């Protein structure tokens, strides 16, 4: 019998409980909780104080670059990257080539593409045709084909289309995700407008570029009472509008990327294209305030905004290189290292921000360890340190902002629907490599 015993392992659950538990994992990926066991029945025993089993994470903001930009990422590389990061479900943004703005492409992603994925892909459809902000895409038809939400991500939804879309989504209780940015204020800016942009005379993106768009979005959400989710917040100045919206009971939710909780324009090399992201890394105070907003429930979700590009593109000088950096592999390890290990939050918080809240807001299932079920979990080991190097990335884009940094908490194995979708080479040595 190729059964593996997980003996007295600390497991966390989506009801925010945790307990030490022993369970058996058979070769078909079935989990059975055990009250007693005979070790000789098992091929391998996983035991140790430091092992932790976690629910699979959800990333509500990923760019898988499918269809049409497979040189940057494809579903095999992207889903393996997600698996390596402990992610079981991911929302893919529609700014591909062609844009996912019709039911045919949504269907292609839900059915054909998902077949090649090691984890679950939920496509986000474009709000406007070709993301031009001129006319609505067939939202209802895309919803029927399986679109999880709608966004013109990569650019803000134009005001007129956003208002129409918010009113239209009432028909089917849909959610609009906006990328809050006033493109006129950003005006080709490359970095956050602040001390550094002024010192070096660099075209810059003021924080108000985001703030005025968030204010607009909240106003339209108030008028329409529809569901609006704000993507990748970067500045503390956006938070007051969301706080008031929540106090007033509006259907406004929001997310922040893990990277914007860790990096700011002063603690990075701003001319290093690994750190060129949109919205840009802003100030230290923004980092702290965004994290506090998560703790206070003003911001609901942590996402990756995994935005891979080719080496050739990221090798361009910082003015020409495209915005975006990979994030699937490192999201949990970064949160664990920077926040859990520094006692700024606990694992339950991460479960709230990356499992429970995404499930609530977008009505998707929770994937976690359950008795008599297919395995859905990832396991990591406390105090096990990894040097982040290009070789550990499954994403085609290996230029992570965490390169050469030491992170703890990388998943050692990830199981999705009973299937082992990632395994560290030094973990469960009796189990064959994937």
């Amino acid at each position, binding site marked *: 019998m190729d059964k593996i015993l997980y003996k007295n392992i600390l497991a966390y659950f989506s009801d925010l409980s945790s307990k030490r538990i022993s369970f058996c994992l058979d070769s078909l990926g079935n989990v059975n909780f055990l009250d007693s066991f005979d070790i000789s029945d098992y091929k391998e025993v996983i035991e140790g104080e430091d092992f932790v089993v976690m629910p699979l994470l959800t990333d509500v903001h990923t760019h898988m670059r499918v269809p049409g930009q497979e040189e940057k990422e494809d579903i095999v590389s992207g889903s393996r990257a997600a698996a390596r990061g402990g992610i079981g479900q991911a929302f893919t943004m529609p700014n591909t080539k062609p844009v996912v703005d019709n039911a045919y492409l949504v269907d292609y992603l839900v059915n054909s593409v998902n077949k090649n994925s090691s984890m679950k892909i939920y496509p986000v459809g474009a709000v406007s045709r070709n993301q031009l902000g001129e006319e609505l895409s067939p939202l209802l038809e895309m919803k029927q084909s399986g679109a999880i939400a709608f966004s013109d991500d990569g650019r803000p939804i134009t005001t007129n289309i956003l208002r129409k879309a918010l009113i239209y989504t009432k028909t089917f209780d849909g959610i609009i995700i906006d990328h809050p940015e006033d493109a006129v204020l950003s005006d080709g800016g490359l970095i956050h407008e602040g001390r550094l942009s*002024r010192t*070096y*005379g*660099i075209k810059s993106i003021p924080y108000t570029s985001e703030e005025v768009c968030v204010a607009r979005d909240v106003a339209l959400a108030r008028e329409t009472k529809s569901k609006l989710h704000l993507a990748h917040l970067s500045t503390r100045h956006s938070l007051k509008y969301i706080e008031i919206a929540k106090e007033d009971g509006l259907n406004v939710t929001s997310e922040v990327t893990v990277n914007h909780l860790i990096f700011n324009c002063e603690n990075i090399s701003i001319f290093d294209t690994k750190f060129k992201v949109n919205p840009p890394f802003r100030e230290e105070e923004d980092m702290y305030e965004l994290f506090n907003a998560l703790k206070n429930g003003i911001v609901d979700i942590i996402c990756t905004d995994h935005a891979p590009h080719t080496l050739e593109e990221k*090798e361009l*000088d910082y*003015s020409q290189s495209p915005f975006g950096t990979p994030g699937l592999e490192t999201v949990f390890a970064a949160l664990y290292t920077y926040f859990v290990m520094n006692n700024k939050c606990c694992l339950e918080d991460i479960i709230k921000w990356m499992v429970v809240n995404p499930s609530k807001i977008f009505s998707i299932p929770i994937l976690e360890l359950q008795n008599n079920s297919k395995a859905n979990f990832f396991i990591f080991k406390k105090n096990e340190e990894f040097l982040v190097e290009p070789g550990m990335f499954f994403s085609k884009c290996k230029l992570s902002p965490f390169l050469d940094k030491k992170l703890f908490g990388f998943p050692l194995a990830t199981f999705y629907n009973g299937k082992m979708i990632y395994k560290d080479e030094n973990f469960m040595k009796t189990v064959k490599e994937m």
Partner: protein
Amino acid sequence: MISHLLSTKNLDLNEVLEIFDNARRFLEVLDRPTKKIPILKGKLILTVFFEPSTRTRTSFEIAGKTLGADVVNLSISQSSTKKGETIKDTCLTLNAMKPDCIVIRHSVSKIPDYITNFTSAKIINAGDGSNEHPSQALLDAFTLIQHFGDLSGKKILILGDVLNSRVARSNIWLLKKFGAKVSLCGPSTLVREEFENEWDVNVYWDLDKAISDANAIIVLRIQLERAASAWIPNTREYSIFYGLNSKRLVNNSSVLIMHPGPMNRGLEISSEVADGDNALIRKQVTNGLAIRMSIFYHLLGHKADNIVEHLDKNNE
């Protein structure tokens, strides 16, 4: 000692004084009948300008040739780089031609720093975006020192489009090293209030106040082709409130006037002021040659060679 001239920020004051000392010696060469001291004979200097320029490039070219170096000029229009070749490849290609020095101008800040990764040549930043123009600042400070001897406590006003000016930034970092008191004046869109604390300078939006106790004024060009135009309503309004004319200077008639050129006469500076007795604008140009010779010598010269011997030997 610096290995490239990218910025005035990281320059050591003693190094600057050494560049100035040699510039004084080179200045004398420019008045000789035979303007040549082949101290850099056999050295290859490339000037690579991704932005159009006449005076700066000519100044570097004459400086290099006066010192006996071979100077080759390349103009690379940025539209052609957009067609394919990256700046990295351009630099790797140029580097394969074995230059000793590359003088580069580019529309993007920090590109000269970036290309140091792809060439073994010494890099001289001849202007990068709105970031820096260190040789201009060196010649400006040199010109001011010619007149004041010591800049400590001297009040230098920089007037105009500071926001988009690489001349302003390089000057601010350098003049402060000499102990000068730097103030900035212009409309609040071009002279941001944040500059005051971030750069430790005085910010004025009222030109008369700014002029009142200035010892010298560096007037910046309003670059109509650049972003400046977007930050001011129109040139007429700018000229009325921030154009330097003789009426403005009634209460401070001794103030020295500088301008990096090319001037928009009647816009940021009146002809009366530009051609007046206190204007050092032509002197700046000549000093610019000497300073650029001195920069080349500093980066490329064999330190063992005695500069004085060279000067004597070739003085015929």
